[in-house]
């Protein structure tokens, strides 16, 4: 068994809610990420899905050490990132890079593409002697499928997909080991999404990259991921390899999410029963007691409010973990499942 390249252990990020201008009083906390653990193996792609506000992007920032966790550890190649000094951290950043969501805001509009993609070399001058940089930048542009002659153009002269390729080239410049992709395709057209996803895949093969791929589009994540983690309100509620999550999800939230994936086949679409969740995501400043999903779950029992379900292994195949008191593997195309959260027969009688 190889060593994981990145190990995230029980990472927590709470943002204080304060009141007052000069004398700040803490009146609560937003629990953006609340106890997330996972291992990342070299060369694998971990997809992370969840709806808006569930803490995906905060998790990405924590892994990148753009923010310090409130508690918990992040180990990169056996080193605890919290104990790295500023200088050592700057050197570490060469190995772990990020591709951001919005290609329209992630590129400095006043810099040329050559300066943007070449900036990593300016920040880490030891990587490459000055004379080789222009060529390296052109090389990178070529690798991500852009015309290397466009080195003197500005970002606003490119389309969204091309801009995202520029962002990828910048992330790739230092030859990182891990790339954190924070919703890298959600701002793009569907046809362009496919091209960019394919680019990610071919780059992974070529440069042996490890990805953390964050998205809210399940079909995108399925395409690229080896393993998938589902987040809800700052916690991972289910994690497993791509096949087990997508074919027999066991956490009710995963099931509900998957039932919402558009099915292109009209026959399958008619047969499928959608699980429509009631209500909104509770505020992360005041999450429900016990299981966080209980306020929207159709299987809720008394125990759900009292005890928080731990992330335990599901099934015998191994590799699939879910945090639910009543996990039940379910084929989402199966017809004999309860149709919706409205199915009152399954609700506990008050």
């Amino acid at each position, binding site marked *: 068994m190889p060593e994981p390249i990145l190990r995230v252990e029980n990472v927590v990020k709470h943002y204080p809610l304060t009141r007052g201008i000069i004398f700040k009083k803490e009146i609560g906390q937003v629990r953006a990420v609340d106890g997330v653990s996972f291992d990342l193996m070299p060369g694998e792609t971990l997809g992370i899905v969840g709806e808006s506000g569930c803490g995906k992007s905060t998790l990405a920032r924590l892994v990148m050490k753009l923010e310090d966790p409130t508690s918990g550890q992040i180990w990169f190649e056996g080193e605890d990132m919290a104990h790295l000094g500023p200088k050592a951290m700057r050197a570490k950043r060469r190995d772990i890079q990020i591709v951001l969501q919005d290609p329209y805001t992630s590129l400095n509009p006043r810099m040329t593409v050559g300066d943007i993609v070449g*900036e990593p070399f300016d920040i880490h001058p030891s990587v490459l002697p000055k004379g080789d940089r222009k*060529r390296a930048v052109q*090389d990178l542009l070529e*690798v991500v499928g852009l015309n*290397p002659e466009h080195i003197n153009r500005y970002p606003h002269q490119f389309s969204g997909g091309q801009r995202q390729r520029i962002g990828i080239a910048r992330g790739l410049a230092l030859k990182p080991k891990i790339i954190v992709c924070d919703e890298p395709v959600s701002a793009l057209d569907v046809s362009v999404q496919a091209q960019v996803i394919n680019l990610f895949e071919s780059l992974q093969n070529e440069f042996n990259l490890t990805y953390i791929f964050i998205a809210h589009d399940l079909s995108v994540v399925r395409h690229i991921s080896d393993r998938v983690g589902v987040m809800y309100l700052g916690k991972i509620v289910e994690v497993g390899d791509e096949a087990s999550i997508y074919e027999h999800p066991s956490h009710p939230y995963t099931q509900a999410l998957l039932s919402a994936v558009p099915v292109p086949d009209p026959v399958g679409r008619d047969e499928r029963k959608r699980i429509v969740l009631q209500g909104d995501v509770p505020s992360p400043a005041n999450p429900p007691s016990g299981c966080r999903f209980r306020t929207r779950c159709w299987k809720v029992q008394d125990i759900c409010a009292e005890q928080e379900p731990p992330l335990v292994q599901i099934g015998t195949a191994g590799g699939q973990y879910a945090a639910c008191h009543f996990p039940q593997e379910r084929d989402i195309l199966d017809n004999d499942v309860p149709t919706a959260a409205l199915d009152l027969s399954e609700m506990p009688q008050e």
Partner: protein
Amino acid sequence: MSDPNASMAAAAPETVEKETYLGSDLPPAPGDKEKSRSLWSDAWRELKSNKVFIISLVLIVVFLIMTFFPQVFTFGKDPMACDLTKSRQAPSSEAWFGYDNNGCDVYTRTIYGAKASILVGVFATLFTMLLGGFIGVIAGFFGGWVDSILSRLTDIFFAIPLLLGGILVLTSFPASDSTNLYSEVAKVVLALGILGWTSMTRIMRSSVIQVRNADFVVAARALGAKNSRIINKHVVPNSLAPLIVLATISLGGYIGAEATLSFLGLGLQPPVISWGTMINDAQPYIRVAPFMLFFPAFFLSIAVLSFIMLGDAVREALDPKLR
């Protein structure tokens, strides 16, 4: 990048194949010959077709020539050569703007007066722009208690009206006997600048706060960039536009403020010639010799107006939301 042999064939045979970054293979790329379009050059193209911009620019160029080469307009007349016998003579073909109380040629003095006014305007603007811009960048970028302290400090200075402050400073440090134009100008610049920087700070701070959390700053941080680099390369270039606009507009305001202070007898002092001092000189004779007041006041208005029009045109070009 899939088949290395194909690329070897594609590369020019006489050049030695160099190990490329990332091991990909591409033929040596020729230099980019096409014209690149930066946002600044886009703004310039927009400005070039703006009539208001052209008119105000022409006027400003005329005023600048007056500042540095007044002889061009005065046909060798000396503004200090006065003849008391001609006191308050009305405009004639000999003296287009008439003579003032001391029998000096108003036209020549108006032309020479541009120098002090323009210098005060330009240097007061530069001073407030640098000081205010710097404080604004520090407050906006670092936030937290740094921002709190600097912002409250700005508020305190902001609460004092510019002219009142200028009067206070200039009366506390009364005119020396120096007749040197530059030291007089420097004094007025300091009096205006010491209170004028606050609006620059506010504009810069808010525009830095907008840029500070932009994704490209996050990306630079993720690459390991230091704060100094982030400020210089990312934050300042992207937050400068509002400051430039405010600076062009307030340049006109400073010229007016200088005239006001000089009119009150506090700013520039005779024998330094400025539009403000000329208006001050003319004030007792408004009824008998209105031309003494009219011409310097007219030049002052045109100068202020042209800088404000320039600022307006620049704002339109730099602010993409208005397009």
